[in-house]
């Protein structure tokens, strides 16, 4: 089934993300897409996999997006979000929960001298998901996190499971910030951007709000300002999702215009 849908972006999505610099969270883009598809089909949809997603442009308050979809033979749906014809996000989604064996939660050594989350993350409530550092290795970080009940992703005490991606993205941002923190003084919060997802498998439809999650990221590849992290989010012993995320941390903090994210051509 191929279709085109219009999506209005409500102002509530921008609270805490980020103060003075409103950017639609990448997971909100995904949530809006899944919501629009569910509305169109008149049924709840269980997102089970994200073979890939690429987030290309920042979305600001008041903007309208257009979603185009195209069904593929292998049970997946190609999606493309545009704004005035320009690509904002594109990717491939798979519906139907992932049923393969869930991996066990990775365990990282406990970090005694944990960096302060509030000082290193630009995210503010209700979009600050990470609550503390649990463990660290040379190339990885594990954090405690939860989806606050007043976060716009939450309805009826539940958030779609893809909200857990934001917990992993913030853990990746914290890993990067902690590295700068160790390297010298003056390292403060710096807005990073979720720019890609790959091979994400989801094992749940929802996560309960205000419930402790564990988000673990391990650096897979680094090509500044781009980093790839393997991510996993668990609720107790239960894996919610795992996959790879790509994050962009600009070397300085320029006004986040879409074309100033890098000096690459």
């Amino acid at each position, binding site marked *: 089934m191929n279709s085109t849908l219009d999506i209005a972006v409500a102002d509530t999505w921008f609270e805490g993300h980020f103060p003075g610099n409103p950017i639609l969270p990448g997971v909100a883009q995904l949530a809006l897409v899944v919501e629009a598809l569910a509305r169109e089909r008149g049924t709840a949809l269980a997102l089970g996999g994200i*073979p*890939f997603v*690429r987030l*290309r442009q920042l979305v600001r308050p008041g903007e309208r997006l257009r979603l185009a979809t195209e069904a593929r033979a292998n049970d997946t749906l190609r999606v493309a979000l545009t704004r005035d014809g320009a*690509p904002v996000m594109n*990717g*491939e989604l798979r519906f139907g929960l992932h049923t393969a064996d869930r991996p066990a939660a990775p365990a990282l050594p406990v970090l005694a001298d944990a960096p302060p989350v509030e000082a290193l993350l630009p995210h503010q409530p209700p979009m600050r998901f990470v609550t503390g550092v649990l463990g660290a290795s040379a190339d990885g970080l594990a954090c405690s996190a939860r989806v606050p009940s007043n976060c716009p992703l939450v309805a009826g005490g539940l958030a779609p499971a893809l909200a857990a991606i934001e917990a992993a993205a913030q853990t990746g941002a914290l890993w990067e910030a902690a590295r700068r923190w160790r390297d010298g003084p003056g390292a403060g919060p710096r807005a990073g951007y979720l*720019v*890609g997802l790959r091979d994400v498998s989801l094992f749940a439809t929802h996560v309960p709000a205000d419930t402790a999650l564990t988000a673990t990221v391990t650096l897979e*590849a*680094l*090509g*500044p*300002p*781009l980093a*790839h992290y393997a991510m996993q989010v668990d609720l107790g012993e239960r894996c919610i999702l795992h996959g790879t995320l*790509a994050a*962009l941390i600009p*070397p300085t903090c320029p006004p986040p215009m879409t*074309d100033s*994210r*890098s*000096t*690459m*051509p």
Partner: protein
Amino acid sequence: MTTTTLQTAEETRLATLIVEALNLEIAPAEVDAAAPLYRDGLGLDSIDILEVALVISKTYGVQLKADDADNVRIFGSLRSLSEHVQKHRTK
């Protein structure tokens, strides 16, 4: 009908890496070796180029710096990128 510049074996391998890393809907052999990789050529944006730099670093051990003044030339085409990679590769 535009003519496509044929690829060398190294260029085909690099084109395959790029197409797979970016999930492009084009066959590697269809990438014009002489056309620009970004914008009007293959249509890559700045984040795509960073992804390409990262996969090249992983595969060939060649570090491509985001602030290199030479990037416009290096990423000028599959051919120029492949030549740069072959010249500087460490694996």
